[in-house]
């Protein structure tokens, strides 16, 4: 067994909250530069220039890339030989509190969904934990903004709807979202599982590296096809028209009940924020 102190968890989470908000991943930055080269709309190019310039300012001055610093969505892989003495989730939330206050990040969490009231410190985090073999604790903080989240959805298709039904749902979602999720978007798709698992798969899909393909050739082909079709919608950067509407499309799958075909789409804006540490 290996003991990990709560303070280490808190400090690591605080640091990840800050860096995820200040500095975009290299894969996303490169994808934006490629998008800029591919984009033929003059307005689209101007928008991409501003986005790229913004990343340079944010990372050099340690400022949040976007004023919506998101809901702190946290993925944990807890090694089975890891021992935590005390309240792990409490330590994680303390890290979010610390990161968001000390990092001058916006506090966007409302404590009661209908009665209101800002929690003041961007807690609680939403935590997804898996137990895996080993002695390490892997923490990924993936802040998720409200605008793109509002444009996401889940549908219980039937097995008869098949792959065409999946494609239709994804494209309908991107069309009706239009300018609202701040295109160019990154599209996370979850297929299979059940009602609550498909959206989890779609959110997890957003952690993939831009340019990486699903290891199953069938789904890799579907990812590429959907990316092509989405980029033919003409929606473009900020929905003002252009050739680049999506930077990438990622699919995650899981076995399903024989009577169902759940599919979820989680749209991410072009600020795909996630940072990982392994303790």
């Amino acid at each position: 067994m290996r003991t990990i102190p709560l303070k280490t968890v808190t400090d690591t989470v605080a640091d990840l909250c800050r860096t995820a908000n200040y500095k975009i991943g290299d894969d996303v930055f490169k994808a934006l530069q490629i998008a800029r080269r591919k984009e033929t709309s003059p307005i689209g190019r101007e928008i991409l220039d501003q986005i790229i310039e913004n990343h340079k300012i944010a990372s050099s001055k340690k400022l949040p890339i976007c004023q919506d610093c998101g809901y702190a969505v946290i993925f944990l892989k807890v090694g089975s030989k890891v021992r935590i003495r005390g309240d792990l989730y409490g330590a994680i939330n303390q890290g979010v509190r610390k990161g968001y206050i000390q990092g001058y990040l916006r506090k966007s969490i409302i404590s009661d969904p209908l009665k209101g009231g800002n929690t003041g410190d961007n807690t609680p985090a939403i935590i997804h934990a898996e137990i895996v073999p080993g002695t390490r604790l892997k923490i990924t903080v993936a802040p998720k903004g409200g605008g793109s989240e509002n444009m996401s959805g889940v549908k219980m298709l039937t097995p008869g709807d098949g792959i065409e039904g999946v494609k239709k749902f994804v494209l309908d979602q991107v069309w009706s979202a239009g300018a609202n999720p701040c295109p160019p978007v990154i599209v996370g798709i979850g297929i299979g599982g059940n009602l609550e698992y498909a959206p989890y798969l779609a959110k997890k899909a957003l952690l993939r590296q831009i340019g990486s393909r699903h290891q199953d050739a069938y789904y890799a082909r579907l990812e590429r096809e959907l990316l092509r079709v989405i980029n033919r919608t003409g929606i473009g950067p900020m929905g003002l028209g252009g050739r680049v509407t999506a930077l990438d499309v990622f699919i995650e799958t899981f076995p399903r009940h024989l009577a169902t075909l759940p599919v979820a789409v989680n749209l991410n804006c072009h600020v795909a924020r996630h940072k990982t540490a392994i303790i």
Partner: protein
Amino acid sequence: MEKRKNTITKITAPLTDKVTRSLKIGQRVLVSGKIYTARDTVHKLLYDLIARHKALPIELHGLVIYYAGPAPTKPGYVIGPIGPTTAGRCDRYTPALLELGVKGMMGKGKRSIEVINAMRKYKAVYFAVTGGAAALIAKSVRSIKIVAFPELGPEAINALVVKDLPAIVAIDCRGRDLYESGPRKYRNKAKKEKK
């Protein structure tokens, strides 16, 4: 749509009809002068005051509204990163404000047909500001001052003095809408597309 490659027009808020009539869909602008942040809550408050024929805390004539709620201000900075928020949430309150003289709106996303009709009638313009360019936009802000509804804290109306804030004319005062014409222009004409 007129193409004005590499032409950037400098405009100063508050705006006159002469200026708003001259701005065309797709035009790139740099906004200077005084603009006012106003989000959902304040829009509803202003709308209610107008409906009840009460005095408003600010003069609306010529005003430019920026739909935005910034991140906290770091020491040494005038304002935290301040990108646009979705304008559509304020659509239901907007025609009343345009009738009383609001001339410009800066935000992101589509507007309703009612807003576009009011823009045509009252010669107002809607500018798209780039979402996710929040730190870049903050560089244009020279000062910030609360001017109305201080009790709302972060949702109060703030007057921002800005210099060269980049924006694009998304809907002009003739009602031409780049959110419609832009995608249509770049949509691939392949017939086999699934929509």
